[in-house]
């Protein structure tokens, strides 16, 4: 079967044990204000446009069926209101200015790519990580990928927001070695406001997944001004303590690098003032969670 992916990243070393290949699936039901992979939200392909890379060869202007590309006073303009994201412009663009993000790929094709690095997984105890977007939004595709990875004895990780029918998570328990489960916000009203999704289902899924014995890593993006609150930190620790199978809590400090991708997507940056938190600040967050948490708290 086919799924929608936007990247296969080899030598991924921060998404689970060993050297891994991370498959990024496209499409996510959440709309987090701080999303650093904004191209992953919609299931459909996007055209990335980086005008600084354009060398003015004119290929896109000639080949766009919608006349969305124009050259005005020597400057390359992409009119996003006309663009139908067909990707024809990018086919002959070798400058890196235009690039289609997102494509259909079969399970076989993805697994073949993942298996290329088998020698490295063997040395390092690594394997495949599914990330996104939200892999559970393409549940059947994820299921088949994980089943195939298991067949080849790969270590498997799943990064998830946990926002999906529980049956999907339950069906994957025996196929996934580590669930990297997001804990974006512990206050229900704020969770809804920041991510567009209700917290209750996620919490229920997390509790039930834990009860099934799944090994969990809680991943907590921390955004100054939104969830960098002591009561949130304490709630994270409390949650990790309450569950039986959390092996680690990871604090992911906000960074504004997704801004580059927003520019390429032609989308407005709604939070232009947000920036990197200070190192001391991050250390304070970690200490605050670690103070009452019985599992290791690390920067992710």
């Amino acid at each position, binding site marked *: 079967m086919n799924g929608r992916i936007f990247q296969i990243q080899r030598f991924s070393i921060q998404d689970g044990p060993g*050297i891994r290949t991370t498959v990024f699936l496209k499409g996510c039901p959440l709309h987090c204000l701080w999303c*650093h992979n904004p191209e992953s939200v919609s299931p459909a392909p996007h055209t990335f446009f980086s005008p600084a890379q354009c060398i003015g060869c004119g*290929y896109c202007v000639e080949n766009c069926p919608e006349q969305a590309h124009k050259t005005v006073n020597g400057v390359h303009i992409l009119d996003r209101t006309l663009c139908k994201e067909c990707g024809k412009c990018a086919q002959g663009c070798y400058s890196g200015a235009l690039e289609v993000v997102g494509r259909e790929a079969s399970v076989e094709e993805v697994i073949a790519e993942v298996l290329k690095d088998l*020698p490295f997984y063997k040395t390092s105890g690594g394997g495949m990580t599914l990330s996104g977007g939200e892999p559970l939004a393409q549940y059947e595709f994820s299921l088949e990928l994980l089943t195939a990875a298991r067949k080849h004895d790969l270590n498997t990780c799943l990064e998830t927001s946990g926002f999906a029918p529980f049956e999907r998570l339950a069906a994957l328990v025996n196929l996934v070695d580590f669930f990297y489960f997001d804990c974006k916000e512990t206050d229900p009203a704020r969770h809804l406001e920041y991510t567009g999704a209700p917290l209750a289902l996620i919490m229920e899924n997390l509790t039930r997944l834990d009860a099934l014995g799944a090994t969990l890593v809680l991943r907590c993006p921390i955004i100054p001004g939104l969830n960098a609150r002591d009561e949130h930190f304490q709630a994270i620790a409390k949650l990790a303590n309450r569950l039986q199978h959390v092996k680690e809590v990871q604090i992911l400090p906000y960074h504004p690098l997704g801004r580059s991708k927003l520019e390429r997507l032609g989308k407005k940056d709604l939070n232009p003032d947000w920036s990197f938190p200070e190192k001391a600040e991050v250390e304070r967050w970690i200490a605050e969670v670690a103070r009452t948490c019985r599992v290791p708290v690390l920067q992710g």
Partner: protein
Amino acid sequence: MNFHDSLYTDYAPRLAAWRQECAQRQRPKQFAAQIITSIARSLRASESLPIQLRRGLCTRDVLRFLEFELNDSALLMGVPAWPSLHTESPEFQAASAYLGSIPPAPGQTGHCELDLSRLHELGIDGLRQDLLRRQANANKEQKDVYQSFLYVLEGFSALCAKAAATALAAIPAASESRRAELKAIYESCQRLAHQPPVTFRDALQLCWFGILGTMTENVGLVVPGRLDIRLISFYQRDIAAGHIIPSQALMLLENLYLIINEVIPEGLAVSVMVGGRDAQGRDATNELSYLCVEAVRRTKLVYPTVGVCWHEETPEALTNLTVELIGKGYSTPAFFGDETIQRGLKHYGVPPAESCDYINSTCVEITPCGSSNVWVASPYFSTCHFLVEEIRAQAETPPATFEGFLKAYQYRLAEKIREGVTEENRRRVLRQLNGRKPFQSLFTKDCLERGRDIDDGGARYNWVECSFVGLANLADSLYVIQEEVYHQHTMSMPELLALLDSNFEGHEPERLRLLKKHPKYGINTEAVDHFVRDTVAFVTKECAQYKMLPDDSHFIPGAFCWIMHELLGRESGATPDGRKAGFPFADGAGPAQGREINGPTAAILSTTSWDASSFIGGVAFNMKFNSSLFTSPETFQRLRDLIVTYLRRGGFETQVNVVDHAMLLKAKENPDAYRDLVVRIGGYTDYFTRLSPEMQTEVMLRTEYQAV
């Protein structure tokens, strides 16, 4: 490793100050210029004698002529005190003119580890007796050779004695604590002037005097080599007898490293190799292996490089110590694949008992220890330059098929190899006729047994190792020609030539098409990788049919580059892979700059998709990373996993750069060479060069910040 004993901690500040001086000092560009007058004087005085005796006398005279200077921190004697001599002085001018009139003895020198085992066993006096015995039963020619060796020993003994005298003379003016150190130097050098080395210090001192001695014969790049194996018995004896503790051995090793930096001219490489296996195939790692690496960590200067000779039984601790250094930004430690290299050496006829005993003779060119007259990097072949020549030659009437074109190119390459062999053999003839190196000969197997000088074919191994530069660019270019000219017919051969001749001026879209549309070596695609494999097989076969003078030795290929990928790249026009004129070629066996777009695992798979064992001339694979990738002990372990997987797959050699700010700065200025540089911060991964300038600045601030 921690060395907290007072011996080391008391000495450390003095070492640090010396190191600081050493790092700032301008090193000599040329060693020989300083001793030219002394060489000329000696040779003038011996014009009536046969060349073997003249050279023996000359080496003796120069060894006698050497003086030493000793700073207040040195524990070993080693830095020559050069008499100040202006190159404009009439004396020097006359000496150069005289030496210029002597018939030339061209070709590569050095690139070897000496065999000091006879001195270890017999000492200078004992070896003299041995030589006299041999001389008594020798023919006329051999008698001269042994006589030249006797002259060498006379000079070598004088050099040791002078070193001893220098230390002795410094004692009266020295402080109480320094006196004991000077006394130790004195006693050691005095002993070496006649007797075998007894202590670890003696053996280390002798190692350096050996290197210095060959330099007087204008032989560059004789290296310490396998220090751990050579010196372990001395070390263990000293430890057992309570003469030394590990930190003292470390101090002495650091002394050797600093002296090397003081004396060896800049722009070269000096190798120490550790680990590996013994003749029975057992792991040879010992305590000194760790100390040799540790000393590099502490001196952190350009010399020496330390190569870990890795195999499956190499202790994790040695692997991890070296990876740790690499991760901390040391670029000098390298890993060598023992399995692959030994397989290659056996392929060229080295018996199994000796195939374990090799060194990277400076960078990655492999030579057997103690028995080598192997000329490395002789010559360099610019594979892509020949390709462009072939395109030019074929432009008017190109072959009908790509296979036809490839055959024509290979024919040209084979011709260049033949010319290379002819030239090196021409040099070998001149060398045999006009050159003699009795000092180096005396410490190179089997010159002594044969009674022949190294320049006269006395050494056990007389291979010539050549080097093929730009293999990745060649593979990438061949693929482009195959696709554009022959399969897709998007370009004719004359059009391609015109494009190359224009250096893509006004044709940037075409250049980017050639560069980006087609897969490249380094992304792990068989369609391109096979061109490197085929070329390697082809040149291995071609080289194998030649015999090198004087003893029908092998002509052995390699892909070693030193700085030649840059030099040859600078001289070469544009190439079909989208490389502009003057841009460096790919370094060693790795992908061309900026083309590892599938990351390091793919690059390793490409690089190990062909058997490197026949390329004993050296194969290097450099990896570079931004430190943002390695943020925790676990992620550092991944670097180890990468390296180990590379070696397990038959990798020949690898070294890694983990750089922070400086690399990003370069990438910002020269994005074309850094297209594959991945930065990763908090789950976000992107190519650095694709970030907007503002974001690049932000990432740079960030990585700098993280490094603090």
